[in-house]
């Protein structure tokens, strides 16, 4: 395989991983929207779903335009199908978010099931005495401390998708996912 081909493969796989990550983020955000009965989060999921449609098309075009040999074609069919699956997961996430957008308070059993699940989503309020306040996400290293990932920050009724350099402010609501075991640790960090 030539260097050029190798780079092209890497690009394709990177794109696939992006599809996979986005579809999983959407699932987490969709369950979060139910837990919080949050329309903003549900709308965020719908926006991501539109983005996924485009990203998925671009991914397929890229695979199709990478001139691979006949005997390699089968391996790429597998990759294309993996792409289709991420799209299906994204659709399912959008359906979950729809429940919130309908405007009826989600049934309490949904919140219970989300809270008790092995992988859960949760939200915490950042109080004044929190060591997280006025620091960036990179500085505080929440995944290392708690095993939870910050999916979104809710500030003044708006949801922001966090970047490593995003600053955490007092009054923020951090929406995070991870194993239920990390929830307590995150709560202690955000509102000691």
């Amino acid at each position, binding site marked *: 395989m030539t260097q050029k081909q190798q780079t092209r493969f890497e690009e394709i796989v990177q794109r696939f991983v992006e599809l996979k990550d986005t579809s999983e983020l959407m*699932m987490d955000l969709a*369950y979060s929207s139910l837990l919080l009965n949050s329309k903003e989060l549900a709308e965020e999921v719908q926006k991501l779903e539109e983005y996924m449609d485009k990203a998925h098309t671009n991914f397929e075009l890229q695979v199709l335009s990478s001139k691979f040999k006949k005997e390699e074609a089968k391996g*790429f069919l597998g990759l294309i199908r993996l792409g289709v*699956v991420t799209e299906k997961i994204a659709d*399912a996430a959008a359906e*979950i978010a729809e429940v919130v957008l309908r405007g009826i308070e*989600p049934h309490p059993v*949904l919140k219970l099931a989300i809270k008790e*699940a092995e992988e859960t989503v949760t939200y915490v309020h950042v109080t004044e005495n929190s060591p997280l306040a006025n620091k960036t996400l990179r500085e505080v290293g929440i995944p290392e401390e708690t095993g939870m990932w910050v999916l979104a920050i809710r500030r003044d009724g708006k949801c922001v998708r966090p970047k490593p350099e995003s600053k955490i402010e007092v009054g923020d609501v951090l929406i995070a996912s991870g194993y239920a075991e990390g929830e307590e640790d995150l709560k202690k960090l955000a509102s000691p």
Partner: protein
Amino acid sequence: MHLRFEKIEYKPIPVRELLLEIKNLSELMIDLAYSAALFNDKELAEDILELEIRVDTLAYLLELEILVAARDVEDAQALTGVSQVASAADKISDAAADIAAIVTQNIGVHPIVSEIFEKVEERLTRAKVSETSILVDKSIGELDLVARMGVDIIAIRRNKDWIINPKEMEQIKGNDCLIARGASLGIKKFKELSEGKKQKLED
């Protein structure tokens, strides 16, 4: 292709329990399915197809519970949401089965894809347990890797069998192949522990 339907007998199970198991299984299946596709593992893929049938059964039982529970329009309005979420989780498990089918139908994923994927995906890993690893002969509950490093062992391959979603008392043996998911730092540590490169659970 032949369709298989489990013979389902109605038994009352709380909606919460059904929903919880559907959610847990569907997410577990996705992670297992990506592993099966990337490591081209047929047995694991077949187990995922079995799990998919289980989720279908659970989803059907849940639908029955929901229909039985609705007494008036208000109930029905609240419960359609539950039904929709369960159906979405069921679709996620179908998606996992689609991934598994890539393996069982011998389509496969190009080996170079797996190679690159392992470099960029930091959430899923496969590790072989060395005889000298400190994980050997310890139970999942005793190790408590989830609390310790945010790593969850989702499947164990022992000889030719897969133990899916192993329970607390399950002991890890030398030469086991473990599939785990978690945060990237924990995953790194977990790999070193399995391979015997690191001999202490705590830093």
